């Protein structure tokens, strides 16, 4: 029997008695199986002690949750077919700060049950239209259908911008996370501004 075949048979005999990760090393020498990883938009990072995957198996067998807030509190209120009511977000929102250097105006529309955001940045002589992006609505709990917040993401090439807004006393409080990708000296920064609703429905789409 050729030596290579003997080695292969030995490896195959071994793998049924050893952990999967080690078996992969034996079967594919030189290739180490990857560690379990937690995903991040900014890259993948090994999870120390593999605790994340272990916890997943322990806590989410059927209706997964990682915290008490992920569990519905009332079965009667938990209508899986009912969507979050987007109407409190829909409309034209104007920055309360007249001389803002950030976003002067936001138009939020609902189309076929989905939310879309069009942001207008402060530019001269006219506002800069950032175009339309899909936005996502959030309620205040897993069994509520009252909108509490929204988020959106925009990649403008030289920068990634994440929008995160929440409704409070009639205001839309918008935080933008601005991450530059163009190797300039500009630092990634956040901006928090306040918007009041001009009209419940946008003038045009």
């Amino acid at each position, binding site marked *: 029997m050729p030596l290579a075949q003997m080695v292969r048979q030995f490896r195959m005999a071994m793998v049924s008695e050893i952990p999967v990760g080690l078996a992969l090393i034996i079967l594919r020498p030189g290739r180490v199986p990857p560690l379990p990883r*937690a995903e*991040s*938009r900014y890259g993948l*990072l090994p*999870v120390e002690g593999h605790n*994340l995957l272990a*916890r997943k198996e322990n*806590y*989410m067998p059927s*209706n*997964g*949750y*990682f*915290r*008490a*807030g992920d569990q*519905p509190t009332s079965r009667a209120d*938990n*209508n*899986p077919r009912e969507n*979050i009511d987007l109407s409190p977000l829909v409309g034209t929102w104007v920055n309360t700060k007249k001389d*803002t*250097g*950030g*976003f002067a105006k936001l138009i939020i529309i609902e189309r076929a049950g989905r939310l879309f955001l069009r942001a207008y*940045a*402060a*530019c001269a002589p006219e506002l*800069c239209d*950032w175009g339309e992006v899909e936005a*996502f*609505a*959030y*309620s*205040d*709990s*897993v*069994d*509520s*259908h009252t909108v*509490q*917040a929204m*988020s959106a993401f925009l990649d403008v*090439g030289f*920068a990634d911008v*994440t929008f*995160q807004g*929440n409704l409070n006393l009639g205001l839309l409080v918008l*935080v933008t*996370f*601005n*991450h*530059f990708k163009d190797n*300039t*000296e500009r*630092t*990634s*920064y*956040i*901006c928090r501004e306040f918007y009041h609703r001009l009209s419940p429905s946008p003038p045009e789409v």
Partner: protein
Amino acid sequence: MRYTSATDIPEAAAETEEAPSRVDASPFVGMWSNTNEEPRKRIAAVRLKLRDGTLIVNASGNIEHEVCDWGEVEADVFAPDIGSHTAMSFQAIYDFGFLESYLHANIKHGTLVIATCNKFKDGSGRSNYYTREFFYQLEG
């Protein structure tokens, strides 16, 4: 230099300053505990540390009075403006498979404020939801 809003334009002083490549995230480093003692709180505690200059987030949920370690993820840090190099905020993303949690945090008056946008991906019918919670820094 490209920009899409007035705040993206560096001030003259900031342009001439020799800028480090990263925002200093050291103000976040430490162990933070939720100010709300209710068992239904969403995030029980957060440990923040630096690894090779990158801010690492290790959050813990709570389930029926047990702490559930979410594991570690990298965070992206943000300054208050483009000319500053001291972190004011960070964001991080946890992907649990059935759920994505987007953490947006900032420090205000010594309190760490964490807002989360939680998107379910499991078709369970649960509403995507938003939370805003407050954390105080533990000694040591």
